[in-house]
């Protein structure tokens, strides 16, 4: 950690750059964000040269803090806002160090520019993987502190005094004899200085903004209908378009009879592509009606023979194989031989759709000399590249105007819909706004893969595992996203957590058995690989505790003696829920614990049984240690929402395939938790000064196993496959 920090300081000192104040009308401080973390899955993708992410510097000017002559601070956010409150968090970091109020900051979306906005954890310009706070934490504070130092120095020079005798506060500099001057008046002078080498960040005990529950900057327009999402945009001359892609992934259009569609009032053009038919019209309803009136003959292709049962069977076969070894520590074979007993279980997780509430949408204008994209995206660089590839334009001719996102959960890390929008827009002369129907959105998502995990533990005389073998079978998101697996043949996302479980084990062997579903493309889903492995491990450890006749909390503590922070979180949970006192008859509690996305989370679910299969959620408690907290309100909101998001899926959700087609088309068939079913989520934050961890997905990762463990405690029924309703349970 120390080493990393030193490196970080050197790198950022070297790379700090200052723009030309004349061009931008003020003092401009940018931070080039240096690599500072172990490489992630996506990083390996880049390292392999599979994803080329570059983009010239021409358009970007850094993750900038820019102080204008009016004293307002423009902050160019390298992170997209999708409801996680990150832009407020970033503004707080800058405001804290720059000594301005949050209300002095204006946020702008960063244009695509890999060199400037690459996420040091993800190693490409993206918002995802719960890295945002972790990645921006140091560099953005440093940018704010740098600007403050330059302004103080400028004031000191005006007053002909020592800058050590001056201090900044509320957008002004104060001098030793009561002088004061506002930032706006200092920017021209400050912009003439070289950047300081010795930027000193505030100590956490001096923070007056970070750690306070600040009000989100983006919410006022979200309560009065003024907030604009991609789907709300309007451009001069723009028409709406909506598309229907082949219902079977990989299929093609054979022929189209569009006579009836052309008669729908408002319909302008029918665009026929290889695998997609689109209608453009003056309004969305006409598009939908036009699509319905099309008579399309499809060539469904090979995938039309695949049903869910085929996918199930392939995974069952796969977990009998050894695949590729992802990690091997100690001698698992010897452990299994010497063990006083063995225990094996198989856990299964279904295909899932992201289904954010804003259906996929994208505004595009393709011209001979360039292309503009107005779209909420987690990957603006990829958006730019795909538009360039489709149109034959140079990347720098493609402008991406990032927008607020109406929920993503991973969906807008993909850019399939952007590609489609550009393909359609290339065939017409006017700007179009692509709007998918919900049916199109749900049946043409990219899905969280279906997985099967087979775990085999060597158990000692006291009932504790000395080691386990963990076989993971499923499609590879990494390979789909990047183009291929790393040379090791192991999907680093699929085995995350599994290769480094928090529990102390003498031996561990993890296998990755790639079994592509083929029938649907696979992708990131909130919680990613962390969630999938945590699910299997936390169910498994709970079963081991149960088999040993031990309390699942104290059993875990025994295996976690080397993890003091985790123990603290477990103890806090135990005290909040009075774990040691018995639950009333007919009730049961389940828990799960993990070190996920740099945070520690413990989640507890208490259920009561209503009849044989009726489940009532009595209580849902989560404890999080996410290190130093920027905005406690956002942390709580993310833990609440993330936990319920995961609960909704764990209870209800599963995508089925029949004849190669996704069967769930809308929210009646892919039902979501409603307010009447949603328990309050109690969130307890462990006070901590450690480096900040991610929270956007942390709650999501723990709720599934906690729920199934609670079902076992309540009903004496060990469910090993999600979602819960599949086993006949219902919410009572």
């Amino acid at each position, binding site marked *: 950690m120390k080493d990393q920090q030193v490196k970080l300081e050197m790198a950022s000192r070297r790379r700090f750059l200052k723009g030309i104040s004349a061009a931008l009308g003020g003092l401009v401080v940018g931070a080039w964000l240096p690599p500072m973390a172990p490489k992630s899955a996506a990083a390996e993708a880049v390292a392999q040269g599979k994803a080329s992410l570059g983009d010239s510097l021409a358009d970007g000017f850094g993750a900038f803090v820019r102080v204008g002559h009016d004293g307002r601070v423009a902050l160019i956010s390298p992170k997209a806002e999708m409801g996680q409150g990150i832009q407020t968090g970033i503004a707080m970091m800058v405001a804290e160090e720059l000594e301005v109020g949050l209300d002095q900051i204006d946020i702008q979306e960063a244009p695509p520019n890999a060199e400037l906005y690459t996420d040091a954890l993800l190693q490409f310009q993206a918002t995802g993987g719960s890295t945002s706070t972790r990645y921006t934490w140091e560099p953005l504070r440093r940018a704010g502190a740098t600007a403050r130092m330059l302004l103080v120095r400028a004031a000191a020079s005006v007053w002909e005094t020592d800058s050590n005798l001056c201090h900044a506060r509320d957008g002004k500099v104060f001098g030793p004899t009561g002088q004061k001057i506002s930032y706006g008046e200092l920017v021209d002078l400050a912009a003439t200085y070289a950047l300081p080498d010795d930027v000193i960040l505030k100590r956490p005990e001096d923070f007056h903004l970070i750690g306070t529950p600040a009000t989100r900057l983006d*919410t006022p327009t979200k309560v009065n209908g003024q907030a604009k999402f991609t789907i709300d945009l309007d451009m001069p001359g723009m028409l709406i378009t909506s598309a229907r892609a082949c219902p079977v992934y990989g299929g093609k259009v054979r022929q189209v009879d569009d006579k009836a569609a052309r008669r729908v009032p408002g319909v302008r053009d029918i665009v026929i592509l290889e695998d997609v038919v689109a209608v453009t019209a003056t309004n969305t309803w006409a598009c939908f009606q036009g699509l319905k009136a099309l008579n399309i003959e499809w060539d469904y292709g090979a995938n039309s023979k695949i049903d869910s049962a085929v996918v199930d069977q392939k995974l069952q076969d796969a977990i009998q194989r050894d695949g590729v070894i992802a990690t091997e520590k100690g001698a698992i074979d010897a452990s299994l031989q010497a063990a006083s007993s063995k225990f094996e279980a198989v856990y299964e997780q279904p295909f899932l759709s992201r289904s954010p509430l804003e259906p996929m949408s994208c505004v595009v204008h393709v011209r001979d000399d360039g292309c503009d994209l107005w779209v909420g995206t987690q990957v603006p660089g990829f958006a730019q590249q795909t538009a360039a590839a489709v149109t034959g334009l140079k990347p720098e001719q493609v402008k991406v105007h990032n927008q607020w996102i109406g929920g993503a959960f991973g969906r807008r890390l993909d850019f399939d819909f952007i590609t489609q929008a550009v393909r359609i827009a290339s065939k017409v002369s006017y700007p179009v706004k692509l709007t998918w129907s919900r049916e199109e959105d749900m049946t043409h998502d990219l899905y969280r893969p279906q997985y099967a995990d087979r775990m085999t533990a060597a158990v000692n005389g006291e009932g504790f595992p000395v080691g386990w073998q963990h076989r993971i079978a499923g499609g590879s998101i990494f390979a789909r996203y990047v183009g291929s697996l790393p040379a090791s043949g192991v999907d680093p996302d699929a085995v995350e957590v599994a290769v480094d479980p928090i529990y102390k084990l003498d031996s561990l062997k993890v296998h990755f058995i790639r079994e592509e579903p083929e029938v649907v493309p696979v992708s990131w889903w909130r919680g990613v690989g962390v969630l999938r492995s945590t699910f299997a491990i936390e169910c498994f450890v709970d079963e081991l505790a149960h088999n040993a006749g031990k309390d699942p909390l104290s059993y875990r503590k025994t295996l976690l003696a080397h993890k003091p922070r985790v123990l603290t979180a477990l103890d806090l949970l135990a005290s909040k829920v009075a774990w040691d006192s018995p639950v009333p008859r007919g009730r049961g509690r389940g828990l799960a614990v993990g070190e996920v996305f740099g945070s520690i989370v413990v989640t507890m679910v208490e259920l009561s049984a209503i009849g044989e299969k009726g489940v009532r959620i009595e209580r849902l408690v989560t404890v999080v240690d996410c290190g130093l907290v920027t905005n406690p309100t956002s942390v709580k909101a993310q833990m609440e929402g993330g936990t319920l998001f995961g609960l909704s899926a764990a209870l209800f959700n599963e995508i089925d395939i029949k004849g190669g087609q996704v069967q769930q088309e809308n929210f009646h068939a892919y039902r979501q938790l409603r307010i009447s079913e949603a328990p309050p989520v109690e969130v307890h934050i462990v006070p901590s000064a450690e480096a900040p961890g991610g929270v956007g997905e942390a709650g999501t990762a723990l709720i599934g196993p906690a729920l199934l463990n609670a079902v076992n405690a309540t009903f004496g029924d060990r469910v090993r496959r999600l979602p819960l309703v599949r086993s006949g349970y219902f919410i009572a």
Partner: protein
Amino acid sequence: MLTLNVNGTTHQVDVPGDMPLLWVIRDILKLTGTKFGCGIAQCGACTVHMDGKPVRSCVLPVQSVAGQEITTIEGISEKPLARKVQRAWLDHEVAQCGYCQSGQIMSALALLNDQTSINDHAIDLAMAGNLCRCATYTRIREAIKDVSESVGVWQP
């Protein structure tokens, strides 16, 4: 030509009678605060008021609402109770992505306008038709409770 009354203004619109009110509001009148989420009355993102009652505009043919008073999220901010609801939404930091929140607020406001006694059960009944994929339910409940208390109709 159909005559529509939206947010106190009369509009003449030239659209097919079976076009759902949602698309008239969004695409013709350009009031985009009312959202599209499902199109089949499953998510509540498109909730507006018709003569004060919450309705799902995605399934209401526009010809069926001619002559009624339609209120969208853009049309509520003058009303004191609505301002209280919006304030509570901000105080409780309800919104995450915010996409569902127009619909949530319209449903909540209809509940508060309509009921002289509100409890958790009443919230469940009034709000169960509004999905939030960001799952902000805990805070929606708190915000409604807060307003109910402040206007003296909270009766647990």
